[in-house]
């Protein structure tokens, strides 16, 4: 049977109820109690209590409205777009540094992440029973990266290998300038980005916290810019929040804070500065208790996002009593 679901012609089973249609459209992204979900059938809102007793008929139009894309409907988890897809979690995880596969699986599950970046150079995607199995089990979206590449040529070649190996056009582009700081090599990065964009890749470049370079990468057609907060694995936090703010203010593509996160407040700050998401690895994988830190990061990112949306008060030099001293008695 054919219906129109959110404007798209969709095939559903004859006699399927609205509950089943919701499952179809959102699958496991909706909470068990279906909080935050609203459904309109032929333009009329259907009360929740009638969902399991109502079935659309051939040719019906159904809208499963925006709230559903908010997933759990939790604070700070409003969906965002990256590479033409919608995501709920604003935490992107790295796969490196976990002491065991079990530790990795557990922490990633708790972090709520939907995207994981993996280094093609350090991982054979066809190897059974490895990191790939964990990723498969958690149903994470794989973002291959070009870690370990020092030239544009090397990075382009690695990206193409990743496209073959993972069957994806997505690549987190890293071109490293030297192995002590692991800072990006700006000219090589820009060269590789241009070439990969031209070749149809969805390019997410790991870049310096440099507003000019970020603008150049965006102009080259990158799907996002990923400025570093601090050196990879340093846990140094966001060393130049002013530059991150400038990058955010100018970017028309998502800004993902990449590298330098050491603890939860760093991730919160990134989101408060207006980043769309945070990418982190060692902060969780090398924490004494990765599970606990993964949970902390999940909350930290959501808190920072909510705070950004909430609109903070301006900083003042002098105090300003929250209860006015004048005005209506009894209203304090």
């Amino acid at each position, binding site marked *: 049977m054919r219906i129109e679901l959110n404007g798209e012609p969709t095939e559903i089973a004859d006699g399927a109820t609205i509950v089943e249609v919701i499952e179809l459209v959102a699958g496991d992204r909706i909470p068990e109690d279906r909080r935050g979900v609203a459904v309109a059938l032929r333009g009329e809102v259907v009360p929740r209590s009638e969902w399991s007793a109502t079935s659309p008929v051939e040719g019906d139009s159904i809208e499963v409205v925006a709230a559903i894309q908010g997933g759990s409907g939790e604070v700070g988890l409003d969906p965002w777009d990256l590479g033409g897809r919608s995501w709920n979690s604003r935490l992107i995880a790295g796969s490196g540094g976990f*002491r*065991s*596969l*079990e*530790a990795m*699986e557990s922490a990633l599950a708790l972090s709520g992440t939907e995207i994981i970046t993996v280094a093609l150079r*350090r*991982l*054979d995607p*066809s*190897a*059974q*029973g*490895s*990191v790939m199995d964990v990723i498969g089990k958690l149903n994470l979206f794989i973002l291959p990266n070009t870690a*370990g590449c020092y030239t544009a040529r090397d990075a382009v070649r690695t990206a193409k290998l990743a496209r073959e190996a993972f069957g994806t056009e997505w690549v987190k582009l890293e071109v490293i300038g030297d192995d002590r700081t692991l800072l990006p090599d700006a000219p090589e990065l820009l060269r590789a980005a241009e070439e990969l964009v031209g070749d149809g890749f969805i390019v997410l470049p790991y870049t310096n916290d440099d507003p000019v370079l970020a603008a150049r990468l965006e102009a080259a057609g990158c799907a996002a810019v990923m400025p570093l907060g601090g050196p990879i694995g*340093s846990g140094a936090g966001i060393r130049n929040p002013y530059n991150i703010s400038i990058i955010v203010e100018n970017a028309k593509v998502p800004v993902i804070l990449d590298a330098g996160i050491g603890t939860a407040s760093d991730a919160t700050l990134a989101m408060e500065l207006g980043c769309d998401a945070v990418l982190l690895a060692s902060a969780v994988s090398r924490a*004494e*208790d*990765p599970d606990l830190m993964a949970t902390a990061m999940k909350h930290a990112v959501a808190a920072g996002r909510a705070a950004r949306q909430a609109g903070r008060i301006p900083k003042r030099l002098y105090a300003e009593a929250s209860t006015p001293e004048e005005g209506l008695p009894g209203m304090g």
Partner: protein
Amino acid sequence: MGSGSGGTYMNRVKAREASGVIVVGAGLIGLACAWELAGTGAKVTVVEREEPGCGATRVAAGMLAPIGELDFGEPELLELNLRSRRLYPDFVATLEAATGLDTGYRHTGALHVALDRDEAGELRRIMELQHSYGLDPKWLGPMAARELEAGISPSLAGAVLVEEDAVVDPRALTAALRAGLEDRGVRIVTGEVTGLVRDPAGKVTGTETTRGRFDADLVVAAPGAFAGIANWLPDEIRPPVRPVKGQTVELRGDVDEPVCERILGSERVYIAPRPDGRVILGATSEEMGFDTRVTGGGVHELLREAYRLLPDVAEMEFVGAIAGLRPGTPDNLPLIGPTAIEGLILATGHYRNGILLAPLTAKAVGELAVGGEPEWLLASSPARFEHQEAR
């Protein structure tokens, strides 16, 4: 753990006649198990596809470093490693006395060096973890560290001395075990196991191999990194073991002027000395499936980091570089113990600790073979994964 699938150790491995054991796999684990079992009078046959000790055993540096290698969240592994470390002196002494061969075992201690301030921070963090377990490594300033090891880089930020750690030469140990096994009448058959032979009740009564059938009332499976793809192990008990590639480099130096006396380690490399003046540099850790290629990048990284730590390595002769496959498990703990199949014991999944855990694994298998039930073995019970598979 294990309550759902297998019952107690006693039920799973019945006390049996001391005869007819087949050990599958002649890596250090298989050989050590055979040695232990033969020592109790059992008639032992070892089945090996290739050369004994030609897998991870040959590549391993042989560090016996339960303390230096400690990581967060792994108290059970520490417990096993410390137990096995304590067994080592007697294990090698017995073997050396029986064969007259040197296993290269030396109680050298280990010096973990921080080459800059960042590494010092990480090293102190691990030292505090070690102290929290009641272990007693010592922090040394740069001067004190270089008094112990004059060759290390002068620009170090500090070091941790672990006196308990030691080193053994896995290849020499393999040779000694082979000689010892011959003395004890153990046959090593070159062939491949193709299936288990089981009686109507399901109990193992032998193995089918490319060299014919071998009867046994106990089979010890020690296939190392190949455990996860060993088709002769029934699906329900085949463990989730994956190969984790490691490359090591071998350098030769002057026997009278060794470049270091202790195991030296930094964040990215370790240097394990041999009694004859050689050193082994290790090791990369790569999730590359069954790939055992030596790569330019792997060798470069080991040499570069070794040179940063101990510049004297530049003057040593490059003997070679090899790669092997560690048998990794999801929780980094080994798989030692009875399975849901009566008469089949697993001894695999030792990951980074195979050389260190060999004596303990052998002792455990020896006890299991006569119906023992070592409580300290519970954390490594194969049942923890059988249970998951059954769900």
